[in-house]
């Protein structure tokens, strides 16, 4: 059924032309050189597994003997079967540098029609990427503007390309590569862990005065990073080290505002970042750490005075500043409207409870704070100043019975200030403090 071995003297050979320097890719051409090639074989001994080497002027032609049937010495009666011709592949594309097969195209090549072709050896690759670069367009390391080293990898975190000198291995993950700064950012030990093995300092202190070139940037672990709750108690705030958290009390309002406006953006997910605090919240945050609290108008003046410096803080800080100014302006307008709206209501309420004479003692009210909570109207804190000779007790009464009733009815908190400068139940005028938050406890 199947073929039987032939008995005639036969040798089966593989013709290896890879180093022969001849470009033979068809039968006719190989047949053409065969008569002279075959005569060189006469007299040689054929052993299976060995080769005949014919050294040509441009290279070596090898004939590998695969099988020998009844032929030890090749003579004129021997039949030769060439069972394969191993040759170099056809050169569809040639490397512009070395002339070898060039399947790659330089990424930076400007000529799209005839791009520069490159072979595997003349091509520069970024690790784990298939983008090829030629010698003329080697990508540069981005570690600093002047670095001349050729980039060799892409940082897994910041996605920029860097040279080998900036490479840092990702711990326990062979497939990730980090640049020096990202490695420091992710894995620098906490500076405040003084005992035992320091933990990884995932957070960094953002404390920075206006005169400083850089922030403190001290790496801090979770245990040693303290939060400056700028956006309320339930939200992550700005990270500070212990020393700078204490120093907030001695820091001026301008520096506090500067820190808030230039702090790293807090990610909320899906590309959103947390906006600057509302004006009233900001005032509370600033006043919390100051001996002498600022009024709303004073704080507005301070913010306006920062305008010449903002241009140096960067684009994001500038945007934050502009948003803050807009919000302040809006808040000032709304305050005036609220005062105009609430004064008649307060007077009417007191008129119903205490009579017309008492109600006429309240000439003006002033918004001193405002609290916001979701799905509710804003809760204003107002101050009403009485003439010096008027006893404010009748507007408050024992235990604040009347004034609290007023607050519940009109959804406000009212402070009655006597002409001498005393407020409420005789306490000194002070900024708002958490212990005195109104019942609705707005988050600001």
């Amino acid at each position, binding site marked *: 059924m*199947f*073929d*039987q*071995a*032939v008995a005639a003297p*036969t040798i*089966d050979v*593989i013709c*290896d032309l890879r180093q022969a320097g001849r470009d033979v*890719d*068809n*039968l*006719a*051409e*190989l*047949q*053409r*050189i*065969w*008569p*002279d090639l*075959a*005569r*060189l*074989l*006469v007299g*040689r001994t054929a052993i299976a*597994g060995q*080769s*005949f*080497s*014919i*050294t*040509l*002027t441009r290279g070596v032609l*090898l004939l*590998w003997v*695969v*099988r020998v049937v009844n032929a030890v010495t090749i*003579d*004129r*009666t*021997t*039949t*030769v*079967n*060439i*069972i*394969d*011709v*191993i040759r*170099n*592949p*056809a*050169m569809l594309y040639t490397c512009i540098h070395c002339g070898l097969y060039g*399947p790659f195209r330089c990424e930076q090549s400007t000529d799209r029609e005839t791009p520069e072709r490159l072979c*595997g050896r003349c091509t520069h*690759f970024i690790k*784990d990427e298939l983008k090829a670069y030629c010698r003329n367009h080697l990508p540069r390391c981005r570690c600093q503007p002047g670095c001349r080293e050729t980039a060799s990898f892409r940082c897994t975190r910041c996605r920029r390309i860097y040279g080998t000198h900036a490479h840092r291995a990702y711990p326990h993950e062979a*497939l990730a590569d980090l640049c020096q700064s990202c490695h420091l950012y992710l894995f620098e030990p906490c500076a405040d862990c003084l005992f035992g093995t320091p933990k990884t300092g995932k957070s960094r202190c953002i404390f920075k005065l206006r005169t400083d070139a850089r922030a403190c940037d001290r790496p801090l672990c979770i245990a040693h990073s303290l939060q400056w709750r700028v956006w309320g108690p339930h939200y992550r705030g700005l990270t500070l080290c212990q020393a700078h958290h204490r120093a907030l009390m001695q820091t001026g309002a301008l520096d506090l505002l500067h820190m808030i406006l230039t702090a790293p953006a807090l990610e909320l997910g899906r590309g959103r970042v947390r906006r600057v605090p509302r004006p009233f919240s900001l005032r509370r945050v600033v006043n919390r750490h100051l001996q002498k609290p600022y009024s709303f108008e004073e704080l507005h003046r301070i913010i306006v005075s920062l305008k010449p410096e903002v241009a140096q803080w960067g684009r994001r800080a500038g945007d934050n500043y502009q948003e803050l100014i807009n919000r302040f302006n809006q808040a000032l307008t709304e305050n005036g409207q609220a005062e105009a709206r609430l004064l008649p209501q307060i007077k009417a309420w007191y008129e119903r409870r205490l009579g017309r004479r008492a109600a006429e003692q309240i000439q003006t009210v002033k918004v001193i704070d405002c609290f916001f909570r979701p799905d509710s109207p804003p809760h204003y804190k107002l101050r009403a100043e009485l003439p010096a000779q008027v006893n404010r007790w009748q507007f408050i009464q024992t235990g604040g019975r009347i004034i609290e009733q007023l607050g519940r009815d009109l959804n406000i908190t009212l402070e009655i200030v006597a002409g001498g400068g005393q407020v409420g139940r005789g306490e000194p005028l002070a900024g708002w403090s958490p212990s005195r938050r109104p019942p609705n406890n707005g988050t600001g």
Partner: protein
Amino acid sequence: MQPKLNQLVLNGASRHRLRKGFILFKDQPEPLNPAFQPEVAGSSEAMAANCNRFFADQADLRGFRLEVNSRYPALLELITPLLPVYDGATRSAFMQQLAKATGHLLRQAYLSGYRVVAAGVNPYASESTGRSPILCADIHEVEVYDSDELERIYNLYRQFLPELLAVSANAAIYGDKLQPDRSLRMKLNPASFLPRYIDQFSIEHLDRLERMLRKAHGLADLKKMDVNPLGGESLALGQRERPLLEADTATIELRFLDAQSCLPFIRAQIVLLQAIAVYGRTLARRGNRIFPIDDSILDENKAAAIRSGTAALLKPDPKFNRADTRQRHGSWFHHQGVWETASNSLLEIIGGPCLTALQDLDCSVAEIWPLVLGAELRRRGHRAFTNYAEYQVYVYYTSGRHTYPRLQEQIERMLADPMLDPATAYNQQTFPAPAREIERAWQNKLSRQRGWIQAWEKGHGMVCTADQNVYPFSRHHVEGRASLPAETAVTFALVEHDGQCQAQAIRADIRVQRSGWITHYEPGCLYGLILTIDNETFNFLRADLVADRLPSIGEEVAFEIYEVDGPRSWAKQVRRLLPIRLLGRVRQYDQDTGQGYIVQPDGWQIPVQQADLADGDCLVEGQWVTFEMNHREFERRAVRVRARQEKQDHV
């Protein structure tokens, strides 16, 4: 007269290694799965040692070895050396050796009280043990010569994986019960991963490839893919000028084929796998690449092939049709964009891209009969066997649902007999008329047609055969970049595409080439005379001279024998013989006598005389020279010897 060039194949087969799997089990009326029985380990080790001694003693089985799986002692692996399979004779020798080795293994198992089965899983193993079955594969390894062809061949095997898997499924019964899948082994195999497309393979950048595959697909080890590109001594690919025909070299490993019992079926698998490799090699040498099939579609098709075998409906890749516009073989279902059964798709592969390779492999119909007969009958609507999983199902239903011992008897007969193929025999006996028709059709397909170029211009041409049939062809179906002028004798493969026959793989016909010297010729004459070294004379006509200038008397020429008519023989295609210029070094030279020897780097010595020096200078020992060989005299010697200055620096 020089040695005769009988056969010339531009893109041939490489060597092949088979790691054939067997499962050993205890010969009992209701055999249990013995993989976990402690006594099996000792028996199989002793059996392997005995077989290896036998293989070493037999001259024709040298290099064969039997190995016992370290984890499952009942799993044996018969490993052949890398053997040539480029023609029918070598493949017959391969199968005879395999049958001899397998027969000895069967005898040894029988003497030890064991039996041997070759299938994806042991069909008779008891399911009551609650353990997962032993998985048994035939791992084929195909030798590769360089990284370029490795990339193409690997991608081709990946592309044809569902069809090859479907036709090789042989694990439909387990625990004496019919399983829902045709290849239970591939379904349960924990080390089977889809081969990913490799667009650029280089052994020097292997670490980069491994990182990218790990990052993109979470694939930790390339060797666990169903097609392992790093089989054998894969690092050998990185060595320049490494010798061929080494005992171990780089291979591509096919890990997805179930173990087979039928040796003719294994032979057909070898032929098909080698034909795919030859096709990939041809693409690599032409500089062509392979368009990738989408991973998800390939995975779906693979799952369908595991479940349904050759009856699986394969899903086309829509991108394949649009992007691969230059693909020659547009009748494959991916090109057509239609769903197709695995058996029909396999026929398209064999009759399409692999056809020329099969012709180059000197493949007869008998060799691929186990693959094509069942698929062709199935295509014509007959219920025929297309793989041995279906044959297992047949035995299951016809033996009262107790496959042991009937199936086992058949398996052992098949393993010992290199000619026995019961599935194909059943197909042939059940459908004799269609089988004869199919055989004739495939004989026509597998034989190369002879003809001559009738016309060829602007990239298209016509081939005419002796019976005056004319077939069209296009430029990219001509092998190599040589131009074939009109009237050139050619051979070609006849391929039917969209109902029209086309000539493909066109190549110049091999003619007997002779060489000699012109003894008589005058420019004014219409003919001349050539004398060969055997003192034969040939006449030639002036019109048969192929030369840029007219030859002179005494000039060496090559020619083809045109016609032998009584005492007068005619030569045609007479052209000047362009001698190959060789390089060598002067080993010895006596300036007084003017005689010496030139030696080539491999030690071959050629005498030289002063009269043959082209420049007339004396030679110096150790000097590098270029020369031509003179075959005219009784003793060969170097002529037209010239010194080569630049090479001398390296001495």
